[in-house]
């Protein structure tokens, strides 16, 4: 693949490079034999400001040899490495190639560090200080941008330190989430629920499920209409982890608290995406790193003394 839109530019660069190098050589050859007119007192003959003269000392010959060696080096370099337009050189070096080689080397260097953990389960890793230190660093570099540096998330970014999971909180499920990412999709349900009043009623019923402040009358009216929601959220509103449908009874409001927020959700739906983090899916993490990170995140909500 060429970086140029037209082959002309490759030739243009190659010609300029070659002319430059050969031009330097030509300059050297011409000046090596050149004679210089020298006055009696070895000055250039010019006098400035009354008595300022410039000496005309010859340059050391090893400078010339140094210059020649740079030309020789240039010839070898241009054969070996890119420089003559699109010619990629005998060593086939490229920036992308150099980057890939560095990444491979880094992974090879890190392998021994992770080797110890491949045989461990998440529970075992959560007790290992070094594994948790690595996990914490991986978390800060890859996850904290969305889930906050203390893992408690924010609006639309789940809290990873509680026991409330949208897609499952077992080590296997956490592993799956990290590798493949998640897409939570709630379609707009206004049409299925009914008119605007129906939506308000259902919203109040939903609020009542978690004991949040609500209008009891409206909630009672909304209970029947909740059938439209039960398909995903369950008849009891306790959610469905297979679908990623949240538990509506847990008083955790990922996308906003209050009647207005719930009405907005029913009317407009929501698509919430977590990008996949595994290398094979476009992310940056190797399988070993995903394992350690899984254990770390699992440990956040499974501390021995935690009271969630």
């Amino acid at each position: 693949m060429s970086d140029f839109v037209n082959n002309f530019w490759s030739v243009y660069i190659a010609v300029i490079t070659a002319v430059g190098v050969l031009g330097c050589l030509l300059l050297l050859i011409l000046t090596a034999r050149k004679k210089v007119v020298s006055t009696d007192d070895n000055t250039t003959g010019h006098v400035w400001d009354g008595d300022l003269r410039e000496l005309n000392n010859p340059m050391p010959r090893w400078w010339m040899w140094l210059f020649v060696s740079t030309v020789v080096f240039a010839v070898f370099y241009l054969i070996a490495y890119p420089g003559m337009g699109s010619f990629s050189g005998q060593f086939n070096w490229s920036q992308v190639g150099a980057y890939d080689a560095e990444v491979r080397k880094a992974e090879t260097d890190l392998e021994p560090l992770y080797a110890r953990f491949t045989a461990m389960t998440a529970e075992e890793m959560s007790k290992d200080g070094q594994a948790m230190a690595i996990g914490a660093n991986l978390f800060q570099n890859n996850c904290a941008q969305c889930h906050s540096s203390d893992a408690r998330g924010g609006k639309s970014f789940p809290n990873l330190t509680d026991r409330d999971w949208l897609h499952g909180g077992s080590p296997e499920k956490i592993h799956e989430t990290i590798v493949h990412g998640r897409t939570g999709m709630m379609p707009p349900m206004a049409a299925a629920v009914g008119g605007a009043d129906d939506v308000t009623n259902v919203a109040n019923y939903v609020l009542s499920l978690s004991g949040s402040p609500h209008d009891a009358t409206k909630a009672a009216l909304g209970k029947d209409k909740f059938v439209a929601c039960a398909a995903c959220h369950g008849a009891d509103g306790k959610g469905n982890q297979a679908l990623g449908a949240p538990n509506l009874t847990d008083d955790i409001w990922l996308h906003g608290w209050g009647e207005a927020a719930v009405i907005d959700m029913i009317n407009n739906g929501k698509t919430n995406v977590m990008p996949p983090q595994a290398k094979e899916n476009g992310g940056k993490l190797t399988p070993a790193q995903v394992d350690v990170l899984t254990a770390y995140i699992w440990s956040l909500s499974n501390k021995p003394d935690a009271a969630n």
Partner: protein
Amino acid sequence: MKQEEEKKPQKMVPIKSADSDSHAFFEVHKKVYPRSISGYFMRWRWAMVFLTQFVFYVIPWIQWGDRQMVLFDIGARRFYLFGMVLYPQDVIYLAALLIICALALFLFTAVAGRLWCGFSCPQTVYTEIFMWIEQKVEGDRSARIRLDNSGWTFEKIWKKSLKQFLWIAVSLWTGFTFVGFFVPIRELGSELLAMQGSWQIFWALFYGFATYGNAGYLREQVCKYMCPYARFQSAMLDPDSLIVSYDPARGEKRGPRRKGTDYKAQGLGDCIDCKLCVQVCPVGIDIRNGFQYECIGCGLCIDACDSIMDNMQYPRGLIRFTTQNGVVQGWAKSKILRKVFRPRVLIYSAILIGLSIATVISMGLRQPLKVDIIRDRASLARIVAGGKLENIYRLQVMNATETAQNYRIRVHGLDGIELIEGQLVTVPATDTVGVSARVQIPYGSAGSGSHPIVFDVDAESGKGSVSEHSVFLVPR
């Protein structure tokens, strides 16, 4: 007195180039064979060789506790200097040190010209060492010239081989010592002997090769063509700077004379044209041609001429350290020295002393603790249970002592502000730990916007106390 010389341009002593017949752009380098001389300045040069090389070769071997006293651990990004652990954030001290070095250079040059070049520059020091080896192996000046001009006899082969062996040995030891400032030198020694550590091997050989090339072969070529100091020295000197000067008024006309005759009546000066000053010069110039850019101010020509003056029973000082004003105006030595303390020198000295004191005090008062605070950008603020508004921070706590420390973290600056998580952190020696801190205020207790707050981090042992500013954001 030479008053009539004051207003006219200084009498030009014709400069004779090394070979006035050659008119090519380039000239072949003629090897300089400095003759050895003993004297006051030679003794000073060797004193500086011992002083600088003692510092260089001995210091990496000295331990401080259980680590090297001076170690620039680039890999771990920590510089150990005596009892101090310096972080990359301390690079300001390096800047201060370099500024002090530059000012010292300006000061010494304004006073006495190229003292650095003639006495303490590594180029001059290593060239002296290598030339001493060469002289011990190949003999004095005439013996060396004879040896170089001769064919490849057995004598030449073993002498040249021995010299090369000694040069290479000194170069390798120098390269090894240099890398020993960056990698603990004892471990480095065993590593290199086992041919391990590709970068260490590379740098030791690179620096060794540079020493070998510069001191063995390039020598004065570095001073003449490569070093920028030679070129801008003229900007740092003034007519009251001490420079190595030949006194043409005393010395001309130069020429040999018969013993016992009245040389002054013959129109001769004190210079007997013995050319000893040219022979001892390490850069191969004739100082009688006047002040030249190649002159490194080593004073060996002074030693040479003084020895001849002693033999001839003439007064010393035909070549001496003096100032341009002193020669032109014909000043006495006391007036020349008084002129040393001119405004330029006094100002340089004042700034140098002030900056040095400030740097020393600053390093003395330095806290062995650094804290960087990054407010979490992922969420502006959170409303949490208990009616509190929360901001999350990440504190990088950098322990610059050599024992593990427990740090207590507190926060103040807003009514009711509380630190929920991250009040106590243990940081291993010379290590850095990131702490998550949750800071909460009662909801509604502060207006919307950015509020400055302060984190206080104190070591329980008392070694380190820092207050860092940050902001607490309250959304609308």
